[in-house]
């Protein structure tokens, strides 16, 4: 029994096919697996391990290195507030405290209604619209307490904001083709080119 939904399983298999070595697909597949429940359950990690040919301990070890991959459950909306240098200078720390108040949870925690998880982020590379806030990895550009509260209220009321998909979704755009450059064709091209290069140099 697959822990991944059938369509995600298919997407995962397509990903494996894009890389010369299976293990390279580990992180992209984890992103897909994470869409399912917002975090990586043991069952999902076991399945990822099987898909890329490593042990579950290695998947867990790898996953735990990366901030975006989660082993613990998260809320529907993960709010990341940057407090790194550019944001710090623009009141990022104060913004984070405000977000904690609005969502009713401390950094690192999830609100009791399961709506929000709040995180203190390192620089998110949007340093001209500060302090920088992301929700589910989308730049929401709410730089004032008021704009953030307005957005939080909309989310809390159940409104779906198209720019903010479910937590865990990194890209809504699928790759439309597999690999197309046939290694044999490539090898032929290569030798043809080498021959012409040799001619040119001699």
């Amino acid at each position, binding site marked *: 029994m697959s822990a991944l939904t059938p369509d995600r399983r298919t997407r995962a298999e397509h990903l494996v096919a894009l890389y010369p070595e299976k293990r390279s697909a580990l992180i992209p597949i984890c992103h897909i697996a994470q869409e399912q429940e917002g975090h990586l359950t043991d069952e999902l990690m076991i399945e990822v391990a099987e898909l890329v040919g490593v042990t579950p301990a290695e998947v867990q070890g790898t996953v735990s290195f990366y*901030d*975006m991959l989660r082993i613990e459950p998260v809320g529907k909306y993960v709010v990341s507030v940057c*407090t*790194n*240098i550019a944001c710090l200078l623009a009141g990022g720390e104060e913004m984070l405290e405000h977000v904690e108040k609005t969502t009713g949870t401390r950094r690192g925690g999830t609100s009791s209604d399961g709506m929000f998880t709040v995180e203190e982020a390192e620089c998110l590379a949007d*340093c001209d619209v500060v302090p920088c806030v992301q929700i589910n990895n989308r730049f929401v550009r709410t730089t004032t307490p008021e704009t953030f509260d307005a957005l939080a209220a909309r989310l809390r009321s159940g409104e779906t904001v198209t720019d903010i998909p479910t937590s865990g979704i990194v890209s809504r755009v699928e790759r439309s083709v597999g690999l*197309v450059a046939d290694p044999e064709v490539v090898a032929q091209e290569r030798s043809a080119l080498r021959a012409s*290069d040799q001619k040119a140099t001699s």
Partner: protein
Amino acid sequence: MSQLTAPKIVTSRIGFDDSFTLDRFLATGGYEGLRKALTMSPSEVCAQVDAASLLGRGGAGFPAGRKWSMLRKNDVSYLVINGDESEPATFKDHLLIERDPHQLIEGVLIAAYALQVNQAFIFIRGEFALGLERLQSALNDAYAYGAVGTKILNSSFSIDLVVHPGAGAYICGEETSLLESLEGKRGFPRIKPPFFPAAIGLYGEPTVVNNVETMSNLPWIISNGGDAFAALGETPSTGTRLFALAGHVRNPGVYELEMVKNTFRDLIFDPALGGGIPSGGRVKAFIPGGVSAPWFYEEDLDTPLGQGQVADKGSMLGSGSVVVMDDSTCMVRAAWRITRFFSRESCGQCTPCREGSGWLERILYRLEHGEGRVEDLDLLLDLCDNIAPGLSWPPQQTTICVLGPSIPSSIHSAISHFRDEFLAHVKEGGCSYA
């Protein structure tokens, strides 16, 4: 006086709302550079890049042409694009990825052709969700258009390109860590030697790693010729460069400026650029090239924006991120926050970096929160010295990668220039800026 006459090499399409679409791209000369490159021999393309003297835009500033020439000849080799952009206050690649993904793809294809690499990967920081979507859409369109895949644009060159999402770890910007991550592992930087992935890289094969901005320059260089590029700026800092300006300035943002011809003062104060300090205060310190770089101060404002010029003054242009701190800024707090960043982002392999960063951060935290001791200042410097012996620039290192020796930069800068401020924290039992 600012010199703002240079052409826009990588930001020419940014003004269009639909700058990221294939239609707009094709309507504005897109894929012409690639077409031209495909009519040339690979070595001619390399020669143009050499002539342009294009310096890497990822941080280390290594000439792209030289790096390419080191690629070990092999049946299989890879090209990997570094779009991890996580150096604090650096946000130029973010712009290029979201707003002109086709330009990036075109640059990658030109490089791949020049290097005769048939599989390339674009590693994009995972937090760039929109960027990943735009880039993947663009790539799908490019495949459909025939610019990627088998016999691209009816040439005799085939290549596959994969967009690979990262998952949140600053260290994966370091090129060998990036390769480990791309192999599906923890982002542990690889120990050197080999010093360049050009010898042993992805899957142990020869690999070139280049930055997003570096790649985005290639279409223009091929279309206009390497010499035209080299005519801008001043050797060895040629062409234009993106500067990500942040902090206490009126107009933070990304500016494409001709290298060397402008100074930090121009960038920060020109009304067409940074527009000066909003509070009307003074520049207390600024970081010239990402938080790994030693700080500059008011007296350094007239330094030209050139790699060598900044190096001569003991810092680096690095990733092109400039952070301005005005006189309302607490230097202890700034140093603490930057150190905390390194502590959170240290991969954890090397003892000095792993343990040192955490220890330094905790001392700085104590100082900022009124629990500091006078002897902590020397302790901080001595611990820094144990990570980067001699505290010189460029640093000596006791670690595998240069994240380690980057840690002392801000601490050393802050203590050397603002010792009194640290002592005041000790004496007054806390921070008077808050």
